[in-house]
């Protein structure tokens, strides 16, 4: 180990710590409770508090809304080791993220990988500065699991394309300034080969957005309609008909994010909830059938958690996670559905209530929402196909 580097890092750590201590407002060091607690940016964004604004602006000026991105694009230019130190110190101090957006988590990495210099300069900078809210235009009404089966067309019209078609499940499209979008640029070739990845300005005629109501109630999802929306050719990323490569890159990204869902938030043990809701009789849960189901759930819950830990450790030891993310995605989402079925069962009559707003009847609505876990980000069926084919190497017909 190079001791000079080690020492430099230690100096860096001390500096960061001091800077954070001086610049991160106290209220920005408390746990995140709701979506709005982290600033999202975009042309319509407002700050939730003065502290949130201060914290965002200070971090933005350091380039630390995207610490590892090049400074040329508004990033912090940190190397991997430094970035790790920054994250560790922020975590220790409980500092909130100064900014969270699909631009940062999804489009940014894709542009860094596939975008040209002009695109990076233009868009990455605006992302790091929180000036633009991006949404993702992938799914279409008829496509479902077969993402590549998309119909939205981009017709060549000289120096620009004219985009027409419909996207669904575009999260927060109703507040989006721009959309990164998969469109069909060649309908003549096999479906995966005629797709391009384009950036569409949402603030133009021919773009209409309609929120989607779910079985659980209102949602961030939207339907987005394009009718001859104009896309200048400089907004084509990664070359004509090369969009599927970028899509795959982003999908792998998304899958591992969703698998983690069931871990987040829920702190209380299911057995504790059961005891509170159902009660004990002679020291045992009053509902003997439920008791077994809860025991089994807890064991599976621990099993999937430790499997994630184990596979992380194995990845560090050189065995990459790869298709195993499908196992997590599948198992964790199915388990999360089971959990909410059990909780609804424990919740009894009260849990079945469904008020006007989300809070009254939260349990029933949450339970309905979990049904989507095994559909979004690749259905359970698709994950099982992937496990069968890519892990077990079972043949295709």
């Amino acid at each position: 180990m190079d001791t000079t580097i080690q020492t430099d890092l230690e100096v860096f750590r001390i500096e960061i710590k001091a800077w954070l201590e001086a610049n991160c407002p106290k209220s920005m060091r408390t746990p995140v409770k709701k979506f709005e607690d982290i600033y999202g940016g975009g042309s319509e964004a407002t700050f939730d508090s003065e502290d949130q604004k201060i914290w965002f602006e200070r971090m933005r000026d350091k380039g630390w809304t995207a610490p590892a991105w090049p400074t040329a694009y508004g990033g912090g230019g940190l190397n991997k080791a430094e970035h790790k130190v920054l994250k560790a110190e922020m975590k220790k101090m409980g500092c909130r993220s100064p900014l969270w957006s699909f631009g940062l988590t999804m489009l940014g990495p894709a542009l860094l990988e596939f975008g040209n210099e002009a695109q990076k300069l233009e868009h990455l900078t605006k992302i790091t500065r929180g000036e633009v809210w991006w949404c993702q235009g992938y799914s279409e009404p008829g496509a479902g699991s077969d993402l590549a089966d998309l119909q939205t067309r981009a017709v060549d019209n000289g120096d620009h394309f004219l985009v027409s078609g419909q996207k669904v499940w575009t999260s927060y499209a109703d507040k989006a300034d721009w959309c990164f979008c998969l469109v069909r640029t060649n309908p003549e070739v096999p479906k995966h080969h005629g797709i391009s990845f384009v950036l569409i300005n949402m603030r133009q005629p021919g773009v209409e957005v309609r929120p989607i109501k779910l079985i659980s109630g209102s949602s961030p999802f939207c339907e987005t309609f394009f009718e001859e929306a104009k896309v200048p050719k400089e907004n084509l990323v990664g070359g004509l008909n090369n969009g599927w490569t970028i899509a795959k890159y982003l999908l792998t990204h998304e899958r591992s994010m969703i698998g983690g869902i069931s871990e987040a938030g829920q702190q209380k043990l299911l057995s504790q909830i059961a005891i509170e809701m159902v009660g004990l009789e002679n020291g045992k849960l009053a509902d003997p059938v439920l008791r077994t189901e809860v025991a089994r759930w807890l064991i599976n819950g621990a099993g999937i958690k430790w499997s994630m830990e184990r596979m992380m450790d194995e990845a560090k030891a050189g065995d990459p996670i790869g298709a195993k993310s499908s196992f997590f995605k599948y198992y964790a989402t199915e388990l999360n559905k089971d959990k909410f079925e059990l909780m609804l069962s424990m919740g009894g009559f009260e849990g079945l209530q469904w008020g006007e707003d989300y809070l009254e009847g939260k349990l029933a609505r949450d339970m309905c929402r979990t049904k989507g876990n095994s559909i979004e980000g690749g259905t359970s069926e698709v994950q099982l196909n992937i496990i069968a084919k890519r892990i077990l190497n079972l043949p295709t017909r």
Partner: protein
Amino acid sequence: MNLVINEEQQMLKTSAKEFLKNRAPVEALRKLRDSNDPKGYNAQLWKEMAEMGWASLNIPEAYGGMDFGFVGFGQVLEEMGRTLVASPMVSTCLVGTSIINFGGNTMQKENYLPRIAEGSILVSLASEESNAHRPLKVSTQFSKTDDGYSISGKKIFVLDGNVADYFIVTTTDGDKNGITLFIVDAKSEGITVEKKIMMDSRNAAVVTFDNVKVSETGMIGEEGKGDKTLEKALDIARIGLSAEMLGSMQEAFDRTVAYLKERKQFGVVIGTFQALQHRAADMYCEIQLCKSLVIKALQAIDTNSPMLPYMASMTKSKVGETLQLVTNEGIQLFGGIGMTDDEEIGFFMKRARVAQQTFGDYNYHLDRFATLSGF
């Protein structure tokens, strides 16, 4: 006993299907929900259903009923389950009528049954006190007064409690000697009704009784001996509700299979995928079991079988578990579309969860069946 419905029952079923298709498709439930109707059911529709005799299928002819038998009644309930009709059928006709019919005296029958039959009054059982179905755990208390009784206590999950004209209340005396049933006018002083909307867009209420006066004629059956009447009415209600759930299950399944035949993914109809075929075939089998249990259980009511409690618990648990499976698979196989409120499959899932817990969920009934069976 033959397990095929007879011609008369088939005619009733066919006419019910036709009527409901026109007057009360699933879309009607959506409209009711979105209009925030204060009643939570369509009174005009209920009137029409009563005119067709549906409110009196289990009422003796002597009291203005059709005395059609439960196998026939079950056909109507099944069809109602297919279109998810929100109506007072379960509260008033399955529970209310049964308690009055099996527990009441002639005067009470004469007083209430004809009015139920013609659809002019709604009667609702107020029995639940804890958050889960525990019908025999009662702490609502009655006491004697000079000219009758006084009742105090709080009841939850009173089906259609906000529109009921009468409550049948389960009570106990101070020493908790058995259950005593009273029928109480909903407009009586001391009654507070708080309407609750459930996830299936139907209503249940929290009903509080604060020193509510009941005349001597308000007691149903003998003091402290209401348990038997209550359990019998509940067993009938469990079976009737199972028939309704069977209808919902079949409809959700039919819609899912139809979707599998129509929806394309990766260039082929998804119904060709063997894994989905096997899941559908498996559901088909489970539904067949439910159908057989339901008709056997309906027959058990009609024949006054001593096996009624067993049949009720076997049926309610199997139907509850299967309906949960079928509605979950429905949403999963509809995919993203199934998650939207625009698609109706979600309504079946929501109704399934409420029906599941009404009169005891499958946990409760598996346990009860084992206990009844002595193990």
